[in-house]
């Protein structure tokens, strides 16, 4: 910072302002009684230092109070708690409620935006929203129609708003935002509509755009420095994205950014992943399709990429790379390293050095994964860092109009956006996963702005020759690349996990159970069936000296598409239809918050 002060005074003031905002947000994050970001903290660890509820007493947990959101569709994300106020959001129409926890949960204010309902029709996979964020006295809401709104946290008054995209072109939003320094980092959805994905930083106080970095396109659009931006330790060179596409396909190339964001203040780097290249028919887009399916490390102030790593070059299965990047400090070969761990849709869990972008570990976190034999880890090899594709599972090599069968994982990935948690004591990651495989038949499609741009027929079914269920909840060792334990689940685990200093790990299930398990062993300690299936993320907070655990119920999202009808293996024929009970036998729609506590 001192070197910055020698620069022009205007620049120095801006930098100092960013630093102050950073510190104030970090100070709020550091209070264990609060939950001010959807991800818990900048590291996306989803770990709470609270330990009043612990593995010895969690079986006494009771419902303390509940709150209906008044909205029926899929409820992702979680509430926030800042001071004595809880902020609860809903799917479209994206209502925000501020509840006064010191006054019996009375509604302090309610904000309901007016949005054109047309946006619902261009949202792939339900109208979910993964929640609001808090920073600098403001609540940031990113609506379905891509409007970013800053609300006064005390009154709900709109302080500023800005449109981040155009729903008429299929640009929508489902994600939360990340306040960093004096900026708000914002992503975009629409990979199934041929959107050119981007990440944008807006000024936290005015909503003015500070920078925008696309995932695909020329260097000045993707904010790459050909000499300084590296991939696996080497400069990417000029036109790294353009060279990996045929013609102008990159303009409708996808690479959307609807996942989670993390931040390392010391390095001043933000981390996130980009989604699938469009279309889903790989034959229509020859090349590696950079930088779709990529982990990005970008400077928070300028947006310029420091390093990138493309996990799935030339995607053939819709394995979006948007899942969260979890930042940890751990010992590797006797040396403390700053790490980034990422559980990708493609079924591989990656551990990288988050400063340099060096790839340390890439291993399957579900033994069912069969599209690849693994990643080339030899730095001297020409295919260093690339996954070896199994020809039989390659929808590109099998070609258009050919049905490739038995591919694991399915397009929804071994894990989708549902975030994992990390416990610094056990050094284990707790990962909600899908255990689903697919048949995939690509075919030719044409692009129309604002219309779906898919080009593949999919059939999904539980992983064959396994426990018959569609999910697992696993504990993962990111240094050795190993599953420590695995809990089979009947349905995909579509709920974000929470780890606590009480050595309890919480997660929700699609049937509607909130479950608590022992962080060390995975033994189930408690379960309670909430009114609807859980696709939200578990959070915890403390109010007036008492610890609470809260989760949104409300089945829907991508999980609500197939699972409402039940998935069947088309290769099993009619006989198997009754074999996998459908989710509709267990739960129905309904948005509700359930808050748990120990008895007084």
């Amino acid at each position, binding site marked *: 910072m001192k070197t910055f002060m020698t620069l022009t005074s205007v620049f120095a003031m801006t930098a100092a302002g960013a630093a102050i905002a950073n510190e104030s947000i970090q100070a709020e994050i550091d209070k264990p009684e609060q939950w001010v970001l959807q991800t818990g903290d900048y590291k996306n660890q989803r770990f709470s230092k609270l330990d009043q509820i612990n593995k010895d007493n969690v079986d006494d947990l009771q419902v303390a109070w509940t709150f209906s959101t008044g909205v029926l569709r899929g409820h992702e994300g979680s509430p926030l708690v800042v001071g004595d106020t809880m902020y609860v959001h809903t799917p479209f129409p994206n209502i925000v409620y501020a509840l006064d926890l010191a006054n019996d949960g009375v509604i302090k204010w309610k904000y309901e935006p007016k949005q054109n309902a047309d946006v619902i029709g261009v949202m792939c996979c339900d109208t979910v929203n993964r929640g609001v964020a808090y920073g600098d006295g403001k609540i940031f809401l990113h609506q379905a129609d891509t409007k970013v709104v800053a609300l006064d946290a005390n009154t709900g008054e709109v302080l500023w708003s800005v449109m981040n995209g155009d729903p008429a072109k299929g640009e929508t939003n489902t994600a939360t935002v990340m306040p960093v320094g004096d900026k708000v980092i914002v992503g975009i959805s629409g990979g199934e509509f041929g959107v050119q994905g981007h990440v944008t930083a807006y000024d936290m106080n005015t909503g003015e755009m500070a920078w925008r970095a696309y995932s695909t396109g020329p260097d000045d659009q993707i904010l790459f420095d050909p000499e300084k931006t590296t991939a696996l330790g080497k400069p990417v060179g000029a036109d790294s994205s353009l060279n990996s596409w045929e013609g102008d396909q990159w303009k409708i190339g996808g690479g959307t950014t609807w996942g989670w964001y993390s931040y390392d203040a010391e390095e001043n780097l933000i981390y996130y992943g980009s989604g699938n290249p469009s279309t889903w028919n790989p034959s229509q887009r020859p090349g590696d399709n950079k930088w779709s399916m990529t982990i990005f490390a970008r400077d928070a102030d300028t947006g310029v990429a420091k390093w990138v790593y493309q996990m799935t070059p030339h995607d053939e299965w819709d394995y979006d790379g948007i899942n969260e990047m979890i930042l940890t400090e751990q010992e590797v070969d006797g040396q403390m390293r700053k790490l980034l761990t990422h559980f990708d849709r493609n079924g591989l869990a990656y551990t990288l050095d988050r400063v340099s972008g060096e790839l340390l570990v890439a291993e399957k976190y579900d033994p069912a994964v069969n599209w690849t034999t693994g990643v080339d880890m030899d730095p001297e090899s020409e295919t260093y860092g690339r996954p070896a594709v199994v020809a039989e599972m390659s929808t590109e090599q099998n070609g258009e109009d050919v049905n490739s069968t038995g591919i694991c994982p399915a397009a929804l990935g071994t894990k989708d956006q549902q975030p994992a948690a990390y416990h610094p004591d056990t050094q284990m990651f707790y990962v909600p996963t899908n255990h689903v495989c697919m048949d995939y038949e690509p*075919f030719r499609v*044409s692009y129309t702005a604002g219309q779906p*741009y*898919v080009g593949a027929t999919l*059939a999904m079914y539980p992983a064959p020759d396994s426990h018959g269920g569609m999910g697992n909840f696993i504990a993962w060792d990111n240094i050795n690349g190993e599953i420590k334990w695995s809990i089979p689940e009947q349905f995909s685990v579509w709920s974000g996990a929470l780890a606590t200093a009480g050595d309890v790990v919480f997660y929700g299930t699609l049937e509607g159970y909130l479950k608590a398990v022992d962080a060390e062993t995975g033994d189930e300690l408690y379960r309670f069936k909430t009114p609807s299936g859980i696709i939200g993320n578990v959070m915890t907070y403390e109010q007036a000296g008492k610890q609470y655990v809260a989760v949104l119920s409300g089945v829907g999202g991508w999980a609500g598409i197939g699972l409402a009808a039940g998935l069947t293996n088309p290769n099993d024929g*009619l006989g198997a239809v009754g074999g996998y009970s459908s989710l509709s036998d267990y739960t129905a729609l309904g948005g509700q918050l359930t808050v748990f506590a120990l008895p007084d």
Partner: protein
Amino acid sequence: MKFTASVLAACLAAAGMSGPASAQDVDNLTAAYEEDGRYYTEDDVPTFNVGDDGTVDWLTYSGFRRYHSECHVCHGPEGEGSSYAPALKTSAIDMDYYDFLDVVTNGRQVVNAAEHNVMPAFGDNPNVMCYIDDIYVYLKARGADAVPRGRPAKKESKSDVIRDDENACLGL
């Protein structure tokens, strides 16, 4: 004939009779005749044809593919419905063919306190509109339980006329 059918539907609607009732009055499922690999009911409405050995007509097979590209992310696999969009295998049976076309082409909104259902307009999407009859007969075959869930095992071959019409529609 198509004109006659839609006029009839309009008259029934004007007389206060419900759409589904009129659809049930006539046989909207059974194939009466075939033309260049496409099957039609007595009222010239496209329909499916399933042979004794389970062989499906080309449109039903093609509809299976197109449905699972364009429709299933909202309406669920095999027309079964999802947590937020209706089961189209039922709609294809209950709705008049021309009403079905109208909703796909122009969209439909049911937005109120309890529901936020928006069907987008697909009228200018060739990936949908060039295959609308395919999707319709596939869903009708599902609704009538004439084909099971999953990929149809056997299919009739694609006729030259269907191939030519497809290319013309897509502008290839």
